[in-house]
């Protein structure tokens, strides 16, 4: 894990943050409009969910990784909607997390590339060249040290089983959490009431329920084994949130298991 960030890298990130903030003022309300009114999505108990997120963020004023489960292509938008109010664009832009999408999903289209840049995205190629991956990880470490929020999907891809695949979490998440002293992890479980397995977009007109918890990986650790331990802790935490979700909404579990047969 690269330890030091260059001045050029810090400037590039500061520029991207600045442009993203300017772009978010018109674009984020449009995204909210699309989710709420075009697609008909709702976040259940939105006010309480945001209050819970605010309380957890207050407990983690330092480096913070946001680790949600992954079922659809717009999970990061939904999570952002659930945890941050539009006013925070003006007052607390930090709450709008940096994302690390798979570059192959949009690199063929320059408009999409531009949109991703303005949405605080740092694309990475899974299984791609190591130097490129190290450059992205180095930027993420820099951002975490600057107390920015970084959102990563620990499962690395949308769950094939429709459930959290805790045993297949990418160890890079643990490596990143361990690379920054004091880094905490906000684990978020978000699922639509009609969501049974992975999809590109969630089905129209449905409610999303959110569970979240703050994980403190504890003592600073280094090395591959420590990265694995931390990543598995995060995976286990998400699996625990999922269990809690299905205990609260057992009918969703029945539908999901029928689908899995």
């Amino acid at each position, binding site marked *: *894990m690269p330890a030091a960030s260059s001045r050029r890298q810090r400037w590039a990130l500061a520029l991207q943050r600045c442009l993203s903030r300017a772009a978010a003022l018109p674009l984020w309300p449009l995204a909210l409009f699309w989710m709420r009114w075009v697609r008909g999505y709702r976040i259940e108990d939105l006010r309480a969910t945001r209050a819970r997120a605010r309380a957890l963020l207050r407990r983690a004023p330092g480096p913070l990784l946001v680790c949600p489960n992954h079922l659809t292509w717009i999970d990061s938008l939904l999570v952002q909607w659930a945890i941050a109010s539009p006013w925070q664009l003006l007052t607390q832009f930090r709450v709008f997390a940096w994302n690390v999408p798979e570059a192959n999903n949009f690199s063929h289209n320059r408009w999409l590339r531009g949109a991703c840049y303005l949405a605080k995205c740092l694309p990475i190629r*899974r*299984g791609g060249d*190591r130097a490129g991956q*190290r450059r992205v990880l180095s930027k993420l470490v820099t951002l975490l040290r600057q107390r920015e929020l970084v959102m990563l999907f620990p499962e*690395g891809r949308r769950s094939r089983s429709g459930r959290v695949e805790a045993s*297949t*979490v*990418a*160890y*890079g998440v643990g*490596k990143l959490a361990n690379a920054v002293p004091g880094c905490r992890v906000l684990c978020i479980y978000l699922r639509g009431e009609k969501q049974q397995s992975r999809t590109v977009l969630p089905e129209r007109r449905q409610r999303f329920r959110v569970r979240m918890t703050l994980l403190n990986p504890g003592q600073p650790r*280094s*090395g*591959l*084994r420590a*990265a*694995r331990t931390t990543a598995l802790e995060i995976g286990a935490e998400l699996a625990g949130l999922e269990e809690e979700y299905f205990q609260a909404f057992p009918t969703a579990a029945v539908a999901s298991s029928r689908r899995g047969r």
Partner: protein
Amino acid sequence: MTRQDVMNKVIEIVRPFVKDSAALSAVTAKTSILDDLKVNSARLVDIVLAFEDEFDIEVEDEDADRVETIGDATELVFAKVA
């Protein structure tokens, strides 16, 4: 332990993680662990940790990042056990 012994053990360690087991029959030092053997990139860490356990060595993150082929893995381990 010879380089060939190390390579044989490396192949045995990698075997459970390989999706394309047919590719193992023609494995050489130049065989890419990710591209040719279709090992999930996230599992590469498990493989390196298995090297540590099997050969009683410690592998640094930077060294692990350089492992791309069976030959890379063999050289990494051989340099530490030789």
